[in-house]
């Protein structure tokens, strides 16, 4: 395969002038194409002539990762649709990370909702994550049973909701961020419901 690769590279090498004539290598006057202004994706860069021949050779490792303008050939409308969707849910192939804040804690944490199968596991995880910030011994961080804290979340519409009402899948798809709230405040939230 290496020999084949080498011959492909030679055959596809860019040259000035008509094929069959030996011409010097073209100076890099088109090096480093700028990304199209419409593209938000920073990694979107067009291949320069020197790279183009690499693109046509067999097994060139960068090809799989390189982002080429207009490839894969999907309509802009469809691409924008998926970009917007990803931005909304904050989801990506590797996880569903949401911020977790706790009232009174000096900094926030981030967790991957995909790691948990249900609310019990989530609560246990939050428990251990924020243990150091809790006050008193009986801070179980359960919802509504007279404990120190309640777990709430902000959903797609921006509303503050109590964790635990909806099926788990629905929760993970609509949860934008988590907030561990002091019980005193939480009671106010409950009474509204």
């Amino acid at each position, binding site marked *: 395969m290496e020999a084949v690769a080498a011959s492909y590279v030679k055959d596809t090498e860019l040259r000035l002038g008509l094929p069959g004539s030996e011409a010097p290598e073209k100076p890099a006057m088109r090096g480093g194409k700028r990304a199209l202004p419409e593209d938000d994706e920073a990694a979107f860069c067009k291949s320069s002539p020197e790279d183009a021949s690499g693109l046509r050779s067999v097994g060139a490792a960068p090809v799989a990762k390189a982002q080429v303008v207009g490839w894969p050939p999907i309509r*802009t409308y469809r691409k924008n649709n998926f970009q917007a969707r990803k931005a909304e849910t904050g989801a990506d192939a590797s996880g569903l990370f949401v911020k977790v804040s706790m009232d009174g804690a000096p900094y926030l944490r981030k967790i991957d909702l995909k790691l948990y199968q249900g609310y019990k596991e989530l609560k246990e995880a939050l428990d251990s994550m924020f243990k150091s910030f809790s006050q008193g011994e009986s801070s179980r961080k359960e919802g509504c049973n007279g404990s120190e804290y309640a777990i709430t979340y902000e959903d797609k519409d921006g509303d503050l909701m109590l964790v635990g009402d909806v099926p788990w899948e629905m929760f993970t798809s609509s949860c934008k961020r988590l907030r561990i709230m002091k019980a005193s405040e939480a009671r106010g939230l409950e009474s509204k419901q």
Partner: protein
Amino acid sequence: MIEAAEPENSREWSDPEVHEGRLGPIFEDFAFFFSRVLVLFCPQSAVDLRSFACEAGAAGNSCIKDLSLGCVLFVVPVLTKLEVESKVREKNFRCCGAMTYFPDEVVEHIFDFLSSHRDRNNVSTVCKAWYLVEQLSRLRVFVGNCYAVRPERVMARFPGMKCLTVKGKPHFADFNLVPHDWGGDALPWIETAARCCPGLEELRLKRMVVSDESLELLARAFPNFKSLVLISCEGFSTDGLAEIATHCRGLRELDLQENEVEDHGRQWLSCFPDSCTSLVSLNFACLKGEVNTSALERLVARCQNLRCLKLNRAISIESLIKILARAPNLVELGTGSFTADHRTEAYQNLLNAFYKCNSIRNLSGFWDAAPRYLQAIYSICSSLTVLNLSYAPAIQVNDLIKMIRHCFKLQKLWVLDSIGDKGLAAVACACKELQELRVFPSDVYGTGIAAVTEEGLVAISSGCPKLNSLLYFCHQMTNAALITVAKNCPHFTRFRLCILDPVKPDPISNEPLDEGFGAIVKSCKDLKRLSLSGLLTDKVFLYIGMYASRLEMLSIAFAGESDKGMVYVLNGCKNLKKLEIRDSPFGDAALLENVGKYETMRSLWMSSCDVTQGGCKALAAKMPRLNVEVINEREESDEMVENPSDMHRVEKMYVYRTLTGPRDDAPDFVWTF
């Protein structure tokens, strides 16, 4: 224009001479008398042209070949006038040579049976008399390239035009390869039509720039306007839509497909007056903004003829339920977001709503579909012919499979590649009537998990023998799979394969995919459209040139080794209309090898190839009826841009035949040689 040829022998045609018998000898008799046309009268109505030609196979292949060189075959029901002259027997075909004896009205009536633009274009070249009859009776006009001809010329030739279709930007504009303000403005067409063809009823535009000003003019200038279809257009906003809604009395169709529409917040939908009851089709699925749902519900309720309604993502299930209640006769439905606040009883209401809608055949939307709501449509799945789930990433493969099992009448399916090979196998089992399949990538930028592979495609090909149209994004393909697919499905008319990793070879043999695609073009004799991908050498183009004689559109990316590849295609594919090439090693020698070919084609696009400025200039010099456009996007650091030499490689070139010469609206980065 070709005048009717005088017969070479001295046969006198005083009376309509009637020949009975098979196609062959009759055709040959007439092939010299009328240089282009044969007329046959058949007792049954609407005989399929192709099957007729096959039935007359005893004529031998030579006659059918003549057909493709510009001869036109008419098959029309017997006219009452001529029924008097001869007896009609089952499957006997009668020929009448004396077309010149027919008055214009009869000729016009015969032309009414020709629906395709190509046939009508052909008959208009037979003789002057037919040209005149045809031009005055033409109602539907198709302009494949808005810069090939001026609007004034089109409308002068076809003053009775009722329906106009115009296409603008080259196809690769869909993938961001054409700069934003390249051209394709619709306004000149609408302005000219307003002056010359105020009876216009339908306008279809694709890949054009349509301003709000254009829409406003459209809304006010055509009192009989009935149908507006905009596909992949841009440049307008909800203000323009408001004009259409307000002023187009009797509007039947407003179909917006995948356009970029600016949302100016105007409640355009509320602009449909209460007197508007004529809507048959309304598609606003591509709009991002909200519409007034109660106005929508009232509109739907008063338009009793509404058969196609495609909602946008802003429409919730609650609204959908109310809408369905008012429009139980819908045939095509785009569902909107298909998700709801869990606290309502939406699911049961949805189920009831769909039970009543037993005319639905075409479903799309499902933007945010939650699995529980998907079950509500199982009752209509068994009558669906078209299902588009390609904008529904939230649907998981198991729910998809459960749904697909019910869809045994499905003819067209669009899905995301999250369906996986497993899901495609389920489709192959359930959907025996499938004709078109499109599988889009769900993970557009990342490498992701290999969702569909060659296995899925092979399964589909063996389960769905009627498959004729394919768009398939996958991570890998093998020659063996393509050869199997070619054997299983010889009826492909559209075959577009996109392997996400460009230049990827067959992963099993590490060979290029030449043999696989070769098998496709060899087996699928009716192939009209082909898109290639994966590692490909010049050999695949040799095969394409040899076998793909009906091919009209070919898309090439990252393929080939030398100029020979492109030359094989240009010399071989005699029906080629559109050729688009990117990132392939074809240069001036290939470009200039067969320059006459480009006048038989609509257009040629080449980007990131080896064509130089000198080559483009040479082409333009040889072929004055082509526009050779070079698109130069400026670089800040590029000093050579002012006076690039002829050796300068051209980044983007667009060549098209035209009657108008260089266009006058070209922006300064487009140079026409």
